[in-house]
């Protein structure tokens, strides 16, 4: 049994804090993914677990043992690196058996274990190949075999698929899930690709600026993001945000007004809040699909359309005259929605959209923390249509 616990881990370089007071509790057999933008401290956190860096403060506990000051080899871990890091002067057998040979296992035991590891990653019959004679996917398998051959308690992977091409990446993703099932070890996986995180993990740890933002199962992170960062980071394309304030009647901004009872969420009038809604939770009024619990309709103008085949991403703007600027993604005054591919939507049209109240989030603009993940309609139904207004944006 190897639970991994981080207690108040902080790593400071001269004037940069890479990891800031990180607390994590990972159970045995869990597949946990660290996800976050480049430079957020996820790799540093993993290196602290591996023992490649010593934390400035805090403790690393693996399997009940405080390993903070132990070298990597005594921690019962193994690691797969982003650049694969096979030793180029050794063939596959030598690469996989390197750790065992260093530990002076006897020859038969090494042979048996290498064979088994190679079987798990489906590398049979390639034992005498050199790394430069293999494809990227094969090399990645060797790297994984090298890591599992020592029967580690914890398996660390630092963006192992980042250097593979897109198709192979998807394939290796399922392979890794299969591997996790077969091995029954704890896997800690670092990636900046939220699709990898969503598909493979039992839990996702979203990290930003050295701080843990949220650690939850993928769908919880997706449906109930704890703050603006998680809401924006998880999901592709990312969530729409509209900054506004609370009035007596609900949410109000230049473009979007949604009536609800602020008191129900302990919100006081005048508070700055940000409304968040995912592209697939905005519906065209005339669409065949319908929101379960729609808000009053908003008027907008279609701008650029991105047909993806299975859906169309439509950029809407609230101000008809606004210049479209695609460079920085969704801009204030814009709304990205996902519609059915068979909807007859064209560019530069006036459209009416509704949001799904059950999937509409509110965040505190100043702290970024989530307030609610759904907005209940006002009890006195019927008045909602008149309350909703669509501003022209000036």
């Amino acid at each position, binding site marked *: 049994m190897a639970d991994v616990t981080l207690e108040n881990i902080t790593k400071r370089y001269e004037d940069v804090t890479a990891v800031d007071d990180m607390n994590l509790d990972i159970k045995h057999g869990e597949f946990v993914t660290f996800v976050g933008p480049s430079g957020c401290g996820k790799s540093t956190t993993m290196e602290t677990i591996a023992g490649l860096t010593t934390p400035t403060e805090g403790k690393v506990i693996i399997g009940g043992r405080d390993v903070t000051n132990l070298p990597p*080899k005594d921690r019962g871990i193994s690691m797969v690196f982003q650049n694969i890091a096979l030793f180029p002067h050794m063939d596959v057998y030598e690469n996989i058996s390197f750790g065992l040979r260093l530990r002076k296992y006897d020859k038969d035991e090494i042979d048996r274990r290498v064979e088994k590891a190679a079987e798990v990653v489906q590398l049979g019959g390639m034992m005498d190949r050199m790394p430069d004679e293999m494809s990227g996917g094969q090399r990645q398998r060797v790297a994984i075999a090298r890591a599992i051959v020592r029967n580690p308690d914890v398996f660390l992977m630092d963006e192992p698929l980042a250097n593979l091409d897109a198709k192979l990446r998807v394939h290796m993703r399922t392979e890794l899930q299969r591997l996790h099932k077969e091995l029954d070890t704890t896997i800690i996986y670092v990636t900046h690709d939220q699709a990898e995180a969503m598909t493979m993990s039992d839990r996702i740890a979203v990290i930003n600026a050295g701080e843990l933002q949220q650690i939850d199962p993928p769908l919880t992170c997706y449906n109930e993001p704890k703050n603006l960062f998680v809401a924006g980071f998880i999901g592709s394309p990312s969530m729409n945000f509209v900054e506004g304030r609370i009035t007596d009647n609900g949410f109000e901004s230049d473009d979007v007004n949604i009536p609800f009872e602020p008191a129900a969420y302990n919100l006081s009038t005048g508070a700055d809040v940000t409304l968040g809604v995912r592209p697939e939770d905005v519906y065209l009024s005339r669409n065949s699909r319908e929101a379960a619990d729609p808000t009053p309709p908003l008027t907008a103008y279609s701008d650029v359309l991105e047909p993806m085949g299975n859906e169309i991403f439509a950029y809407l703007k609230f101000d008809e005259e606004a210049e479209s600027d695609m460079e920085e993604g969704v801009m204030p005054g814009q709304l990205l929605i996902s519609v059915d591919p068979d909807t007859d939507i064209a560019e530069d049209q006036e459209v009416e959209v509704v949001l799904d109240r059950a999937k509409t989030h509110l965040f505190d603009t100043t702290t970024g923390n989530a307030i609610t993940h759904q907005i209940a309609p006002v009890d006195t139904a019927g008045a909602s249509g008149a309350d909703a207004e669509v501003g022209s944006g000036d």
Partner: protein
Amino acid sequence: MKRIIHALRTRARNARSDGDRDVGVDRPASAAEALKDEGDTDAIRSDGGVAAETDPTGEYERRRLQRWRDSDFVQSAPFWLPPFLLMGFFVYAAIGWNFLISLTEYSGFGDVDYSTIGLHNYVELVGDAGFWAATRNTLVLLVAFTLACLVLGLSLAILLDRKIRFERTFRTIYLLPFALSFIVTAQFWMWMYNFDFGIVNGLFGLVGLGPYSWLGSPRLVLGSVIFALMWQFSGYTMVVYLAALRAIPGDQYEAARVDGANTLKLYWRVIIPQLKPATVSASVVLVLFALKAFDFLYAIWGFRPRRGADILATKMVREAFQRQEWAYGASIAIVLFIISLAIIAPYLYQQYTQGNL
């Protein structure tokens, strides 16, 4: 050069595009042809067209000449021919001539007499104890100097690669001796090794040893020379190794550590094996230098190095230029050449099989 190429190009173009028009003006061959047939007015007027009608064999010859002129071989000649001729004459012809002289009995003043060609100089070499001593010293110098430079250079490179402070400064300091002339380093080490007031004897004196006659004792002299040369050359190996170390990605170190290697095993089993190409190329340079390490010895002792420090290169120069035994000196040069070739040939062959040549 550019103009020549341009002229060639234009000529080739002309020759290709219009076989019938008169191109004799800028073609020396055709001009000569025209001069030869001066009586024939038709030929002068247009040497191509008329000749074709009257003389089919001439036309055929001319076509062949034209094709030859258009071939890549001829067209590229301005690029490869000058260096080829220079190298051929000054290097390979000189080596050949040297070999020829080594077969004669050329000595003293006067001309070479090629009538008594034979291997007698080589036979004499086999019986010359001085030659064997010089060969032995050459090989000892070669092996010890090369190994010492590689080991020291590698150690310095590994230390410098650990992101230490003032890394650039250290790199420059270590490389500096390599930039010095051998005459300078020879003088410098003569002071260092001076029997009465040299720093080396001073240091040994501090621990109660010596003084030693570093450059005088036949048992010490070769070691002293090797040490001085190592001082000069290890900076070079360090730079070669440092470049190779920088090319090894950082996660190789991390992977080895996670797999359980301590620092010693990490370097011995993972990093140093990857430095093989750097070791080979540095060794070739060092070995070839060691074979020719003449100027350093000459700057210290002149024609006759101390017994125990005489190498083939110094013996060769002494035989030829002091004793005027030209042919004998030439035969030593050939032996030296063959040793160099034997050392460099495997390297060149390996480079060739890897497609680097």
